[in-house]
C-alpha cells in the first residue's frame, strides 16, 4: 500500500521539475479602476437641485393627491420631520415657499447625491448631521408629498 502511495505522487511531480520562467512581481494587466471619488468641479448652482425631476407643473391643489401625500408623509417622513419645529430634520412648514418644487422632489428622491453636491442640502448636513435617508419613494409618491406640503403652506 505504501509503495503504491509513493508511486503516484512521483509520477505527478516530475512535471513540476520542468524549468519555469522566473517569477516576477505581477502587475495586473488591466488598469486598476479608482474607487469612486467626487472630484467633479462644483456643479453650476441650480435652484432645482440634482435628481430625476427637471420640471414640475403646478396647478390648483389636488385634494386626492394631498390625502395620498399625507399618508406617505406620516409613514416615511414624520419620523424625522415635524411641520413647525426642528426635529431630526428641518421643520417643513413653508418649505414650498422657500424651495422650488423640483428641488423638494429631488431631495426626496435623491438625498445622497443632493447632500453631496447641492450647496443648500449640503449646508443642512452641518446643522442636522444625519444623512437624509432615501425611503423607497417613487416619483409619483414624491409628487404627492409635495402636494401635501403645498396644502400645509396654503393654510
Amino acid at each position, binding site marked *: 500500500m505504501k509503495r503504491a*502511495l509513493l508511486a503516484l505522487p512521483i509520477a505527478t511531480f516530475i512535471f513540476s521539475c520542468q524549468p*519555469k520562467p522566473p517569477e516576477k512581481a505581477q502587475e495586473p494587466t488591466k488598469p486598476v479602476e479608482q*474607487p469612486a471619488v467626487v472630484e467633479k468641479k462644483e456643479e453650476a448652482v441650480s435652484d432645482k437641485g440634482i435628481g430625476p425631476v427637471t420640471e414640475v407643473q403646478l396647478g390648483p391643489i389636488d385634494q386626492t393627491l394631498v390625502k395620498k401625500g399625507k399618508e406617505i408623509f*406620516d409613514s*416615511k417622513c414624520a*419620523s424625522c420631520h415635524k411641520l413647525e419645529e426642528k426635529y431630526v430634520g428641518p421643520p417643513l412648514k413653508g418649505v414650498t415657499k422657500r424651495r422650488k418644487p423640483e428641488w423638494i422632489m429631488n431631495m426626496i428622491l435623491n438625498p445622497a447625491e443632493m447632500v453631496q453636491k447641492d450647496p443648500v442640502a449640503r449646508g443642512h448636513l452641518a446643522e442636522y448631521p444625519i444623512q437624509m*435617508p432615501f*425611503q423607497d419613494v417613487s416619483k409619483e409618491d414624491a409628487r404627492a408629498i409635495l402636494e401635501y406640503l403645498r396644502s400645509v403652506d396654503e393654510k
Partner: protein
Amino acid sequence: MLGKKKLMVGGLSALVVGALLTGCPPKKEAVKTSAVGVDAASKVYVPPGKQDEFYVFFSGGFNGQVTVYGAPSGRILKVIKVFSVDPETGYGFTPETRPMLMTSHGFLPWDDTHHPWLSQTNGEHDGRWLFINANNTPRIARIDLTTFETTEIIEIPNVAGNHPSPYGTENTEYVVSGSRFSVPVPQRDVPIESYKENFKGVISFIKANEPGKMDVAFQILMPGFNYDLARCGRGPSHGWCFFTSYNTEQAHTLLEVNASKNDKDFIAAVNWKRAEECVAQGKAKEMPATYYHNYYDEKKHMAVSEVKKSVKVLDPKECPGVAYFLPTPKSPHGVDVSDDGEYIVGGGKLATVIPIHSFSKMLKAIEQKAFEKEIDGIPVLKYDAVLHCELEKPCLGPLHTEFDGKGFGYTSCFVSSEVVKFDYKGCKVVDRVPTYYSVGHLLIPGGDTKKPYGKYLIAMNKITKDRQLPVGPELLQSAQLYDISGEKMQLIHEFFTIGEPHYAQAIPADKIKDKVKKIYPLAENEHPYAVKAEKDARVERKGNEVHVYMTMIRSHFVPDNIEGVRVGDTVYFHLTNLEQDWDIPHGFAVKGSEDAEILVMPGQTKTLVWKPKAPGVYPFYCTDFCSALHQEMQGYIRVSPAGSNVPLKYYTGTPPTAQK
C-alpha cells in the same frame, strides 16, 4: 479511527510532495507557490469597486451554515445561517425564527451541512433557490436567493445521516434524501446485532418546486446499506436518480474493516417517474411518522411550524422497476452524471479504477433482464452489461467528479491529493494537478448541469497545514481555484473557508444579482406586531406581558423612554425598522438580555424577548453603526419591583404630562 488513518495518509502524501519538490527548486518558499502560473494574479484580481463573475456557495459542515464567496477573487460575501443560531441577527433566538429550528426532537439549533444544491430549470441553474441538507437530524433547507435567507426547512422521517442529499432533479421537481446510517424503520428498541433483519435504508423524494410547500412526496424502502451520495439524471436520464451505497456487507461494528470486504458495492438507480406511478396506483403505504415542516413568510416576517403525522412508503417488491443496483467497485463515494446525461461516474474511494457506467446500456440491460440476482425485490444488473469503461489507475482515493461541458470529467482524489482530468468517452486521463492537501469535493460552476461553465474549478481541501499563518492547532480548510479554460489545469488562487465545507456550487452572478432584494417594502410588512409609522408606536400591558411596539430610524427609537415595567414581567420588544434604504439595518440590545441582540433589516419587524430580574433603569441601544448620531440611538426602560404601581408611560422627546 478511519478519520485518523486518512489524516495520516494525507500527511504522508503531503510529505512526499514536499520532499520531491525540494529536490528541484531549492527553497521551501518556492515549493509552496511553484504550482501557480506567472499570470495567476491578473486572472483572479478583481479591482476595488468591481464585482466578481460568480457566486460560490460553500456548505459550512459542522457549523450548520452556508458561506457565500465571490469567484475568482475568493472574497467572502455573506454567511447564511441555516441549521444554526445567529447572535448577530437573532436567527434562532427571536420568536419569529425559532420555529425554523423545530424538529420532532425539539428545538435543534445545530446541524452538519454538506451539499448545497442550486435549483434548476431544464437542467440549468435558474438562480431561484439553494437547498442544503442537515446530516445529523435529517432535514433539508431552502434558501431564497432574493434575500439569501433560510426560508423553509423540512425534517425527513425514517432516516439517519441524511448524507446523499439534497441533490435535485432537472426542473427542481424533487430534492432527494437517503440514509447514510440505516436504522430500524419505523424506529424501535431492538438489539443492534439484529441489524440484518431490522435495519433499513430509506430514500426519499421531497417536493421542492413550490416555496412553502416542501413535502416528503414518497419514500422507498431499501436494503440496510449505507447510502452515501446522489445525483439525479438529466436529458435522457431525467426521471432517474442515482445513489451510491457502501457497507453492502451490512456490518454494524468496525466498519473500517468490516464494510470493505466486498469487491463491489452498488450504485442504486431509482426511477422516480415509476415511483410516482406506483404512488398514484395506491401502492405506497401510509406509515405513521412525526416530522416538522417550517416555513418563514417574508411578508409576515414570521416562521410557522406544522407537524406532519404520516409518510407514504413504497416497497420495491410492490413496485417492480422502481430501483436497480449497478455493481460498482469498491465502497463508492461520489456518483456523478455527465452533462449529456449519459455517463454515470462512480468514485470508489478504495477502488483502483474509476468505473463509468452508461445510462443507455443500463436501460438495455434492464430490458434484456441482464440480472445477477435480486436483493429485497431490487434486481442487481450485470456489471459488464452496464459498464461503459473503467478508467485505469486514475489516482488514489477518487471521490467526486464534475464536468466541464467539453467532454471532460474532473475527479478529486483524496489519498493522492490531486485532481485528474479525463476524457470520459475515450476513457483516458489527459491531465492532473496537485492539491494542497487531501481534497474532498470539487466544483465546476454548473458542473452538475446540462451546461457547465467550464472556466474554473475549485478544489476543497481537508488539510491545510503550512498553507497559512498558524493560529493554533486548528486551521481553516482551503479552497483552491484552477483555471480549466485551457488544455492544462492551472492553479491560480487559494482562499480559506469557514466551517468544514464539503461541497459548493457556483453560478454566474448575472443570474442572481439583479433579482436580489435591497429592502423589505414597509407597505408589504404583514407582521402582526409591525408599526409602520412612528405615531403608532406604543406600549401595551397584557397581564404579565408588556408589548413594546417600537420603531427605529436614523438615529432614534420611538419610544425611547419606558416606565411601568415590573419584575416578573416578560417584555416583548417588537421592533420595526422604518428605513427603506439599502444596507441600513438597526440593531437592538438591552442590558441583561439572555438572548442574542437582533438586527432588523429595512422594512422588517423582529421581536426581542426580555425578562428583567431586578428593579432599576436599563439602557437599550442600537448595535449597528447607522449614522453620525448612531451613538445617540439609545433609550431607557425603568423596571420597578414586582407588585408596584408605577404607571405605564412612554415617550420620545417631550415627556407626557399625564399618564397615557
